[in-house]
């Protein structure tokens, strides 16, 4: 068989698989989506809070950012294993792992977004008599928002990819197609999982990129 015939054969097999298993694919895609969404909501809440807190106290900012950076370097399969004693296996473990991975971009971008605000803007705000809480919510966060959004976007796209690994400990999602496909030497199955994860990541990237632009005060 030539390479071309191999390719055409593979493609036919892929479409055939997708056609036959469309219900399961849809279900797994939704599962994957929920897994990432849950993790992101938690990561955004924690990440922005931590980012804001460390922006008030520089000595602690770099250690905190470094810790989140170290977390990111842990291989995802190891991370999931490490979390088993705390979260068992299943959905919760997957959410916890994704949350930890998502922290760094959000924490770092919140911190740098706030620190990058022109000094004169903050000085005039304080000098005019605005309270710190008002400055945070009306000046600092709105001005840092485009940078924070960029961090969230990075986290989401990354989370959709890493989310595949979570299937290994039964958290569900499109990773199931990849792992089962490998075990059963079913390449159309592996491809389907990979393709749908990519499509989801691309859509998320586009949507968040658009939101980022809409929210930017610069335009």
């Amino acid at each position, binding site marked *: 068989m030539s390479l071309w015939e191999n390719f055409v054969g593979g493609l036919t097999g892929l479409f055939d698989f997708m056609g036959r298993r469309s219900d399961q694919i849809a279900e797994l895609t939704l599962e994957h989506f929920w897994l990432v969404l849950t993790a992101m909501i938690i990561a955004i809440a924690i990440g922005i809070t931590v980012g804001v807190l460390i922006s008030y106290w520089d000595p602690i900012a770099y250690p905190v950012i470094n810790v989140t950076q170290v977390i990111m370097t842990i291989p995802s399969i190891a991370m999931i294993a490490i979390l088993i004693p705390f979260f068992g296996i299943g959905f919760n473990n997957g959410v916890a792992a994704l949350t930890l991975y998502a922290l760094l971009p959000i924490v770092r971008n919140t911190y740098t977004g706030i620190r990058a605000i*022109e*000094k*004169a*803007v*903050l*000085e*005039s*705000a*304080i*000098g*005019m*008599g*605005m*309270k710190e809480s*008002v400055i945070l919510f009306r*000046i600092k966060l*709105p*001005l840092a928002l485009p940078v924070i959004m960029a961090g969230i976007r990075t986290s989401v796209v990354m989370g959709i990819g890493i989310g595949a690994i979570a299937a290994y400990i039964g958290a569900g999602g499109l990773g199931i197609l990849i792992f089962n496909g490998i075990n059963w030497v079913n390449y159309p199955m592996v491809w389907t999982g990979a393709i749908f994860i990519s499509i989801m990541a691309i859509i998320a990237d586009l949507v968040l990129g658009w939101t980022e632009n809409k929210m930017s*005060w*610069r335009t």
Partner: protein
Amino acid sequence: MIRLENLTKKFTPTDPPAVDDLSLEIKEGETCVLVGPSGCGKTTTMKMINRLIEPTSGKIYINGEDSSKMDPIKLRLGIGYVIQEIGLFPHMNIAENIATVPRELKWPKEKIWKRVDELLETVGLEPEHFRNRKPKDLSGGQRQRIGVARSMAADPPIMLMDEPFGALDPITRAHLQNEFLRIQKRIKKTIIFVTHDIDEAIKMGDKIAIMRKGKLVQYDSPEDMLSTPANEFVVNLVGGNYSIKRLHLIRVDEIIDRSPFTASPEGTISETKALLDKSKLGLVVITDEKKKVIGLVIPAYLKKEGEYNADIMEETGATVGLGSTLNDALSVMLSSGQGYVIVVDEKERIEGVVTLNGIMGVLQDDD
């Protein structure tokens, strides 16, 4: 009234103090200019008044009340604050920027927006046109006007201004200085104004406080500062040429010739020629029915072909406002190459003419 009593600020225990045992009294409604070389402690002094910096020792009394015992937020809401970098909020439009302090004071909405429009008018910007624009769409001069408007929003009795016009080009700076003087004449705020430019200090101040290395060197009116400098340092800072410096002190309305001949663009040339023959100034100002200056005719233009003034007059870009100093008038004359400048009010209507001879007369009176 603001009273500084033995005010000292040390940023580190070892370095010499940034402000060293400074005592100063600023009367209500007066503009006090803190001036001196960089690092003399003028900005630090100013920032201690609204407690952006807390003094190491000494007291500040505002209308007799010890400011260290006041709530800093309340204190600052009652003190307008303008800095060189302005610090407008880039994500808010102009109206929202100006509304900052009234919003903090929880004014009702209608009152806030009415006040915003009023302030835009005060600083010479059309509310319709500017209200909804973002700071980045404005020029440097316009932004600084907004900065001033924002600081005056809640009508604070005291204003702190740190080199407010320092980043502007000389022409815009002179323009904004004059405008601010005009506004101040009406609103009578107590102003602490920081600058390193002695000419600006002479122009803007009712009182000038010259500082050096954290200490007060001399505190006097501009006139006294010029005539009796306390020591060598003041002499050097003020610079020689007392007469020229005095041009910053005198306003054009003191030597203005209020009766220049005027004519309409529809007037005939022969009439204008007759006026020119009688005119001591040697010029006839052409104005429209609202007294707005649209051009002028000098004897040289009579040689041109035409029947009516409109045919021979030339536009004059060289005008100054009523609040301008003789120094402003002189620079306009120097740049236009003419020995006169037309003085107009804020609506560009004619007020009179200032001539080079008039300015020379002032300088000669001094000697």
